[in-house]
């Protein structure tokens, strides 16, 4: 089995924890009760179509990974209970989201057995456009919160 096939298999075997951790993360930080939209899919490349996107790199000796969380500004305003949010606060709130999401994933034995404990890098916020995303296999899906959609993706490859 190739490394690529190994990663696809590992993502498929762990697929449910990615959506479950995202729901838990929203509840823990924002008290939001989000619903998982459809089954999350293993894809050849993550994508994001929202105006607030944050990425966070993670790595260990074996894997280099990226978490991507994206939503529209009005969704973030609803989560934070604010009418307007400046970029510094958006970056901080979404940064805390990806930090917590990473911690919740790492707490799952099935995740750390497959991908190990990974050290987190500093989260980066993007606005008004899609950041460069590597062509790497990942898993992605959406959460629904009232009429709002939140995108969450995780991509990984072997090696640094």
């Amino acid at each position, binding site marked *: 089995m190739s490394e690529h096939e190994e990663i696809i298999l590992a993502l498929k075997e762990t697929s449910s924890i990615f959506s479950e951790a995202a729901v838990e993360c929203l*509840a823990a930080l924002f*008290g939001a009760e989000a619903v998982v939209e459809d089954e999350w899919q293993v894809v050849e490349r993550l994508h994001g179509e929202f105006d607030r996107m944050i990425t966070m790199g993670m790595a260990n000796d074996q894997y280099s990974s990226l978490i991507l969380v994206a939503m529209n500004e009005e969704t973030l305003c609803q989560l934070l209970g604010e009418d307007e949010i400046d970029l510094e606060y958006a970056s901080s709130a979404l940064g805390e989201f990806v930090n*917590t999401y990473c911690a919740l994933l790492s707490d799952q034995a099935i995740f750390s057995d497959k991908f190990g404990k990974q050290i987190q890098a500093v989260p980066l916020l993007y606005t008004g456009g899609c950041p460069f995303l590597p062509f790497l296999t990942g898993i992605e899906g959406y959460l629904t919160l009232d009429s709002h959609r939140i995108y969450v993706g995780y991509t990984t490859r072997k090696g640094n």
Partner: protein
Amino acid sequence: MSKRVVIIDDSLFVRKQLRDFFTKKLGWQIVAEGANGREAITLWEEHKPDLMTLDIVMEIMDGTQAIKEIMSRFPDAVILMVSAVRTGEMLDCISYGAKEYMEKPLRFKDEDYIEDFKKTLEEVFEEPITYLS
């Protein structure tokens, strides 16, 4: 009784969470906020608060170094660690003199978590603490 608090965390979002909890739930006063361990030392010297909340993983100087320095110079300092770190560094902070710790994420939308936080503060101050009515 109202207390004077200094909040140290590199996350603006977390600082706001803590500020809202202390001011809106307990009626306490936030006298200063900082984003790293170096600021923690400076702000302790400047304000001598009743309580400092201190994150561990921060740029410039982390919370472990900061509490070691603060407790060596101000042995009566009352410091509550607030961090996602649950292992060795947290134990180091307790051994340096942190009174207690609360784990992140701060689940301030969860009434049970809020009650746990209040109980922890009661253990720190060895007195009952009441919510702002």
